[in-house]
């Protein structure tokens, strides 16, 4: 889900990450303050227009990554329909879709390195206080790496299972999955160490 990467290079890729994330935070917070459906609908249309701007390939990739929220939208709408408060249901789902779309948009158009660089700058004051914030710069991309890897791991395991069984794996893969994930962490730990890991870039110091 978060290996949200754009299939095409957009103009937004060249914008600095700071303002993009800042804008995202502002927009998220603003949307939470506003309770007017019309505003939310307009915001969603605006975000979709942003998706359409770089062309159909980008739009399709963007919509694909939005699919994860659809079940959530359905449940929420059904819930509120049953509770007889459709207005609130619409409001919540509109807001949710817009927020996720906006967050995805920023992620799709921001390189990992730019994001990490941003955190690096934001945590600079802490570093001066002696906190080991260098680790964050490693840890953040790692989480972003591990999440799709965990999903891929589950798929690989399911394929290995299917190659030798016609039953569905279900819960029986939980322990192997956990073990493999822990092994993965060990390997990544070693790979990090081999190439500098938490030392952090030191040329600039």
């Amino acid at each position, binding site marked *: *889900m*978060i290996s949200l990467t754009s299939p095409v290079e957009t103009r937004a890729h060249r914008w600095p990450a700071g303002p993009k*994330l800042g804008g*995202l*935070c502002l927009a*998220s*917070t603003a*949307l*939470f303050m506003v309770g007017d459906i019309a505003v939310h609908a307009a915001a969603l249309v605006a975000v979709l227009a942003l998706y359409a701007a770089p062309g159909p390939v980008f739009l399709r990739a963007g919509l694909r990554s939005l699919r*994860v*929220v659809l*079940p*959530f939208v359905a*449940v*929420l709408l059904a*819930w509120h329909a049953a*509770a007889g408060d459709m207005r609130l249901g619409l409001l*919540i789902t509109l807001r*949710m879709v817009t*927020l*996720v779309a*906006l*967050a*995805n948009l*920023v*992620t799709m158009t921001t390189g990992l390195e730019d*994001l990490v660089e941003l*955190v690096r700058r934001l945590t600079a004051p802490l570093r001066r206080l002696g906190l080991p914030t260098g*680790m*964050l710069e*490693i*840890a*953040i991309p*790692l*989480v*972003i*790496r*591990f*999440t799709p*890897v*965990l*999903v891929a791991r589950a798929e690989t395991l399911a394929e290995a299972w299917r190659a030798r069984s016609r039953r569905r794996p279900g819960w029986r893969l*939980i*322990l192997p999955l*956990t*073990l493999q*994930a*822990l092994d*993965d*962490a*060990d390997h*990544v*730990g*070693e790979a*990090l*160490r081999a190439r500098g*890991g*938490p030392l952090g870039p030191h040329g600039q110091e």
Partner: protein
Amino acid sequence: MERNIAQIALFAAMIAALGLVPQITLGFGVPITAQTLGVMLAGAVLGARRGAAAAALFLLLVALGLPLLAGGRGGLGAFVAPTAGFALGFPVAAFATGLFVEHVRLRSAGLAAGLGAVFGGIAVLYVFGATGLAIVAQKSLLEAFTLVAVFIPGDLLKAAITGMLVQALARVRPQTLAWHHQAAGPGERRL
């Protein structure tokens, strides 16, 4: 050191990945989520400090705008929602779970982990969650507690899963549980 970072990142990712498990959102806006299972596991496997670090790292990424909370939510908005108390309580819950397994010595690692999860992932977490709900939804603390009590059966199930998984880990890979000092059995003989 590198291994610690990798494991912390791994469990943060696990909390995120568990957010992909479909959840049910209750009327007052709090979802039943598998993510608390990730929080319990982080504390029970990694221990207090690293477990809390994993949950905190997860929150940092959410704050950065990544849609990692259950239902694909993210951004600073998540920290003003009715669920914000729970979310902010994740690191504390993981810490408490870890503290429990590290200090309450039981023969069975699985039992320790299960009880630790009940303590950290339920008792401690609900204090945060109910307080958050009380503030955001303008309810009394007591009302808030009765509201969130509906999650208890589900969370007990998650604590049980934590216990079983840790029990199995202690059997096949005891060295991953730093807090579980037990000499490797004969099965751990290396080739």
